[in-house]
């Protein structure tokens, strides 16, 4: 089976799985794990969108 996601879908999947692992391993209580996981996910996605716009503007 070959999986060919779009670039953005690949970013979302990467951010999701990495954030879950970061949340569980970097915090101690379940509540803080969830909050940190969400924080990492948002940071991943926002960073990607911001960097994408910067690269787009540079390439113009």
């Amino acid at each position: 089976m070959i999986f060919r996601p779009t670039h953005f879908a690949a970013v979302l999947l990467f951010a999701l799985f990495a954030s879950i692992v970061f949340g569980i391993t970097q915090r101690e209580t379940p509540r803080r794990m969830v909050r940190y996981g969400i924080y990492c996910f948002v940071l991943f996605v926002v960073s990607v969108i911001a960097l994408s716009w910067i690269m787009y503007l540079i390439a113009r």
Partner: protein
Amino acid sequence: MATEENKNGAPANGSQPASQQGFVYLPLIVGWLVPGGGHFLLRKWVRGALLGASILSMFALGIAMQGKVYAGGHEILDILGLVGDLGNGLLYFVSRFAGWGADQAMVTTADYGTRFIVVAGLLNVIAAVDAHNLRTGRKS
């Protein structure tokens, strides 16, 4: 706490608490070989399941994207890729034995797949170290 326990949480009278008995590196090794296995060993079922599912999914998606599984090389990037892939533990050896993945990343998604496999290995190392920290009492 200094009067009853030392800084590692061990009682001052020399006896070891339950969390310190046995081979302390077992969760680290099991966690490396099987994603989430170290947490399962410590009866952290939910954490182990989430870590295992995340790492396995990332590795499987990398393979499904036709990512490259590093087998060695002389260039520094190939060696670093191999080190990252080795973090997957048994998954890496199974994939090498079964011939999963591509020899070369030919399309963009295959390049993403290669990164997914490497990062899955690195995340697995983080998870295994976390299991070791739970085992030694450094983390609750």
